[in-house]
């Protein structure tokens, strides 16, 4: 299935939102990180994993989802959260550790939960796969609408959880889609050094489910593959696995010197940036003009700026609030 013009514009807009969000975070993150990259300091404390470059995975999949559908994401969650419709103000405040954050500062950037749109993520490789399968089981048992999508990195495909959950989802025919964002690097270890086969999508065959490989970090191709998989899940025909060739334009985490990257890889990646590519496509296909583009960019940037202002202006929680919400 091909995306409509509206769907393409939606994908483009959310890629822009995500990209500018990440660029803004990247700048703010370095504020006050003294002495010498003190991770705990500054307005954004802690580890930071940026997802710029990986936007096609998020928008191509989430274009098919609504708030009722469940998404679990990874330690690199912002692009998916934005595409899933997570409250941007509260997510940003969470990343800043503020009281107005989604959990009031208890979770942080790797633990973003927004129950209103059924989004969650976690900091441990392959960890979100079980919960996605459980949400799908819940939907199946209650005969309730909605599918679950688990985003994972290519490194997660070598985890036990990957194999266990694929099998469980297949044996119970659950409405779940597993999406591998293959950015070629597990921190500093290349996929070729960590994975015995070239295509993780081939592993789907071992569990009797369709496996799709989407090359080229292309949001339109992701849309098509995801559409097929999600429709199959909605029809009650069971799970699918999608492997997307993507890349991160940043390091594994902020502060990563990226010494493991071969010479020239980074430049080549920027040359393939999916955002200008989609812009050119919109121009060629729908006569998307520079002024159309400027207006959209301005709107997206203003949205992000306002979320960041909300986060900056919000108060920190009282320290003793740490004792709350262990149990409900």
């Amino acid at each position, binding site marked *: 299935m091909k995306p409509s013009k509206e769907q393409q514009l939606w994908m483009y807009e959310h890629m822009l939102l995500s990209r500018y969000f990440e660029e803004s975070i990247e700048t703010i993150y370095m504020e006050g990180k003294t002495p010498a990259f003190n991770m705990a300091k500054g307005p954004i404390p802690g580890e930071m994993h940026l997802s710029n470059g990986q936007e096609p995975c998020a928008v191509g999949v989430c274009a098919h989802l609504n708030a009722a559908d469940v998404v*679990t994401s990874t330690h690199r969650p912002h692009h998916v959260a934005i595409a899933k419709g997570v409250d941007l103000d509260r997510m940003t405040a969470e990343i800043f550790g503020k009281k107005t954050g989604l*959990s009031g500062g208890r979770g942080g950037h790797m633990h973003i*939960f927004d*129950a209103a749109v059924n989004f969650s993520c976690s900091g441990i490789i392959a960890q979100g796969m079980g*919960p996605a399968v*459980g949400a799908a089981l819940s939907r199946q048992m209650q005969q309730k609408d909605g599918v679950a999508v688990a985003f994972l990195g290519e490194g997660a495909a070598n985890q036990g959880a990957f194999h266990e959950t694929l099998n*469980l989802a297949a044996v119970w025919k659950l409405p779940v889609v597993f999406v591998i964002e293959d950015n070629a690097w597990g921190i500093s270890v290349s996929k070729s050094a960590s994975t015995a086969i070239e295509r993780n999508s081939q592993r789907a065959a071992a569990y009797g489910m369709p496996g799709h490989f989407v090359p080229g970090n292309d949001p339109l191709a992701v849309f098509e593959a995801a559409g097929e998989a999600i429709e199959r899940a909605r029809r009650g025909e069971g799970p699918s696995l999608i492997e997307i060739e993507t890349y991160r334009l940043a390091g594994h985490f902020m502060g990563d010197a990226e010494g493991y990257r071969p010479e020239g890889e980074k430049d080549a990646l920027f040359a393939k940036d999916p955002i200008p590519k989609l812009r050119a496509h919109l121009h060629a296909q729908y006569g998307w003009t520079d002024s159309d583009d400027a207006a959209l960019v301005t709107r997206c940037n203003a949205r992000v700026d306002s979320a960041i202002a909300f986060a900056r202006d919000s108060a920190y929680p009282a320290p003793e609030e740490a004792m709350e919400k262990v149990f*409900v």
Partner: protein
Amino acid sequence: MTVATKERKLTIARAMAEAIAQEMRIDEKVFVMGEDVGTLGGVFGNTRGLHEEFGSVRVRDTPISETAFMGAAVGAASDGMRPIVELMFVDFFGVCFDAIYNLMAKNTYFSGGETPVPVVLMTSTGGGYSDGGQHSQCLHATFAHLPGMKVVAPSNAYDAKGLMTAAIRDNNPVIFMFHKALQGMGWLGTEKDAIVHVPEEAYEVPIGKAAIVREGSDVTIVGITSGVHHGLKAARTLAERGISAEVVDLRSLVPLDRDTVLASVRKTGRLIVVDEDYHSYGMSAEIISSVAEQGVTLKAPPQRVAYPDIPIPFTPVMEQWALPSPEKIIAAFEKMQKMETR
């Protein structure tokens, strides 16, 4: 005791299954999954009869894929279901521990309380059967140590039913630890004192509330599961010597009812804690610390009777030697008396 009319003695296994069935009848969100919980009815009998009544959608056998179904329990609970999951032996939790202490225990906190995780996780504890070091541990403290999960461990069928009902209705994850020797399964031997009258109607035993199972004035013996029964047996022997022992059954490890323990120790002035879990860094240390922190004046140094810090050995002569027992409790009391008069 006069319960002449309508005495209905059940094993812990039957009491657990009855509580689950009753909750499944009134709440369609409650379901059971785990290894061999279906037609077999659970290796320890906790799900007997459920598959026949509720079918394989609500009582589902899983593959032996603990990471997958433990993670799935978290996802289903977060989506509005109330899963009861069994993982046969607490020793097996290592293969899926991430899903337990990083997901089940933390997601509520990470979500600022917006995403409850109402899972009941049943598992067996305890040794004494030469089942070797990977099928005989208790690991009480391991779970009680990690915040975000309630932990209960009944010593008799009445508490087992009431705690199970409370656990299913609780909006938080509850680890339900049952001791193999108390289940009432013939092949595991039977602790007769664990088989008690159980009312037919549903009722809750509140999580986090200890019980005084025997009143006394000279020494407080605190335990859970098997430790309670060792304590009761020791108390009977001590009574023959004119010593009055009070026995406290904690029933819950999280939340921990320190008040009941403190009140008892204030009364008796002596404390012995019995735990089949490992000696060091365990529940026994926690109880003794809690009393010490309150500055309760003791007549003798408190003692712990626990499993030594060794993997559980296979051969009966070693394992039985290492397990807590009534005799060890009496020996601990005698040691206290000597230290007292010194």
